[in-house]
């Protein structure tokens, strides 16, 4: 795509040091941006490029010289002269504990990235014993389009953000309760069809753990017939309206099993409407 951009005044840059290496990032960039510029792989769970950082999972924490506590790299803005360590003993301990706390309380079986992190940090969630409290609960299946399996929810807040002012402006869900029993809920826990939900499915699009999932995928997985190695992905444009949303279709056995959009798409920023995300039953 070619755009004629106006000539912008030169952006100021911020110089800092990460793991001993100097790095320069534009003003307003985060420590995570600085790490990524240096090719340092910082684990993230509650961070998504298309939503504001909420810094609640704390797996991306880094050690900032002079700070009393570790700081979340996803939201902390880079400042001149900062000295940051991403792999110190303190950082590794906190990341390992955060992963152990999550893995001992949440079903992470559909969150492949987390499995990789658990291995990287030597996490042993079984240390908390067989009696450790979990968020296990029955899957909520109350509509034709998607399921909510809150036994897999890490409370990353992404779905609430996408449902609210950052994408859909529907506000059908929010966090209810507090502490360990805190959970994502409609008002009074009513089923989705009785809530304000418009089934855009943008919550599914941003869920990092598979707690929110299209019914097709959920049913294929339940039947043991979800086979990523037999799937292909096709990029296309949504056929419905004139907006021209970019779609990424997952195809298995000549059948569309999932529709999503890339968070980097300039048209959608990863968000779709009910038609783009679910309205492809006519394609054969």
């Amino acid at each position: 795509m070619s755009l004629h951009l106006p000539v912008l005044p030169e952006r100021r840059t911020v110089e800092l040091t990460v793991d001993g290496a100097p790095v320069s990032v534009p003003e307003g960039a985060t420590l995570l941006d600085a790490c990524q510029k240096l090719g340092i792989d910082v684990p993230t769970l509650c961070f998504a490029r298309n939503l504001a950082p909420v810094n609640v999972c704390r797996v991306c924490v880094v050690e900032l010289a002079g700070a009393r506590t570790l700081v979340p790299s996803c939201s902390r803005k880079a400042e001149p002269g900062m000295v940051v360590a991403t792999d110190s003993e303190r950082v590794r301990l906190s990341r390992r504990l955060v992963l152990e706390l999550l893995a001992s309380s949440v079903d992470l079986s559909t969150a492949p990235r987390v499995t990789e992190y658990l291995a990287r940090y030597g996490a042993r969630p079984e240390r908390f014993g067989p009696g450790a409290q979990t968020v296990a609960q029955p899957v909520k299946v109350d509509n034709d389009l998607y399921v909510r399996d809150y036994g897999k929810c890490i409370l990353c807040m992404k779905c609430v953000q996408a449902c609210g002012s950052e994408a859909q402006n529907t506000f059908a869900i929010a966090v209810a309760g507090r502490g360990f029993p805190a959970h994502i809920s409609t008002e009074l826990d009513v089923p989705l069809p009785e809530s304000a939900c418009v089934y855009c499915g943008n919550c599914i699009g941003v869920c990092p753990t598979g707690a929110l999932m299209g019914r097709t995928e959920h049913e294929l997985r339940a039947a043991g017939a979800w086979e990523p190695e037999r799937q292909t992905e096709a990029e296309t444009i949504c056929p419905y309206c004139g907006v021209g949303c970019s779609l990424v279709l997952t195809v298995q056995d000549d059948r569309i099993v999932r529709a999503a959009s890339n968070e980097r798409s300039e048209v959608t920023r990863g968000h779709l409407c009910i038609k783009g995300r679910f309205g492809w039953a006519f394609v054969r």
Partner: protein
Amino acid sequence: MDLKPLSSGPSPEERAAVDAVLGPPDAAPGAPRGLAWASAHRHLLLPALRAVVRRVGWVRPGALGYVVERLHVPPAEAYGVASFYALLPLDARPPAVLHVCDDVACRARGAAEGVAALRASFGEAGTVRDGATFHTSPCLGLCERAPAALLTVAGEAPREEAFGAVTVERAREALATRRAPEDVRPPLPQRGAPELRLLARVGRVDPTDLDAYRAAGGYQALRRALELGPAAVVRALTEAGLLGRGGAAFPTGKKWQAVAQAAVRPHYVVCNADESEPGTFKDRVLLEEDPFALVEAMTIAGFAVGAEKGYVYLRGEYPLAAARVAAAIAQARARGLLGPDVLGRGLSFDLELCRGAGAYVCGEETALFNSLEGRRGEPRNKPPFPVEAGLFGKPTVVNNVETLANVPWLLLHGARTYRSVGTAGSPGTRLFCLSGCVVEPGVYEHPFGVTLRAVLERAGGVPSGRSLRAVLLGGAAGSFVGPGELELPLTFEDTKQAGVSLGSGVVLVLDDTVALEPLLLRIAAFFRDESCGQCVPCRVGTERQEELVQRLCAGRPEGSRATELALLAELGQAMRDASICGLGQTASSAIESAVVRLGLWKGGAS
């Protein structure tokens, strides 16, 4: 926004209770008073829900639906807000509820046994008999009268009455009559002592009478401030070295200066009166017994930092303090000491009293802002700090009650006199909350630098024939210290060096009649209950910490006791290092100190 209304409507009583807070709705039935009005009044969500609870005892779905319709708040969001606060129950409750404290300070005075006896006699918590029930409660801040309880009675003329010296008989009397039994309030131990600064008027000057306050020197400090000018007031605070008493010991002058200089307008002044740290009751005494001093101090703050509006966020469990502060604000306003032209000097400043709804975490300053704004009391990530983006996103001075209580005295006597007591690093005096196994519990004012031993001795020490086992210093977020550490000078610098904290001034004394393990279980349960649930280290960590303490207390470790203690220490470090706010960062402090300083579970005390 596509809002779907809740199906059932409010009862006439609920509608009236909500309308009393929000004003009558527009003529058209059900029409909100416009989106602009609703978005400007979002902060009334909590007061409206509180009004419903005061009228009918709980937040019925129909009442919730009416509030969200009036304020145009998404129902899911309002449900999320209500479900955050312990005093906004979403399950059916009878009109009369007795909240019986079973927290650490009351436990040191037999609360656990008392609650067990109440269960045996009345039924499990939540049992309803004749329109009344009881629930156990975290610290109610009545520790000098422990064990304590708070009776709330919903209805046309709702009542909230706190009382101490709870026994099964007194609890059952309150449940049966829906009236608090007679409450004997012990006098301030140091009442009238000439060296008192912050407590000078307590017990001597009528806290309900503005003229009595003025006759006792009240409002001279505001006049002095007006003579000095804003910059000199801030300078006086800085020169005096006044440090915040809420726990973080941040220089107050620096805070005021930052807000005074902030370009963004308006500025706000907030008093953090959400005193909820277990074992803490000093702010309650100031609020109940010297409320005009708070009004005057906040007016001085408003003048110094260029704020025209101040808020007092007062914990929901302090009914008398709320009544006294509300009355003080009203009297001050009526006499031109608050409003558009304070003292006829062209200064515009007014105060609003807001009450919490049962959430310890709202004592964290940014959680407090969210709560004032009508949201879940979840702490915000810092930076930005409140002086830059605080209440409603504007530059905000937020100070603890005790911190503000220092301001009038300081301005009248000057920085040099202020520093004449205390130490170079901790000038002035400090309030200490003596509770538990001491002869004369209560709030005491001592110069910084006083030793822990002297503080205990002034309160009469432990009852005769018993020996000191430990002191919980600084509250549930503080640390246990042993009987060998009584020479510790109580200053910010000495406690920091010793690896402990003054916190909110809690000195909870435990003698050899008190078992430590149940207290640790209560502390672990407290943090698990009070975690806001936002960040993983605190949300899951406080749960895991409680499980670990339960296993250690039961003598059933997973693996060995050594591996469990190692896991407890690692968990503590991750919570301290990686939690968003002070709650998670300090949730392991007392428990770890029991292991490290008292030798618990290491063959030491049990």
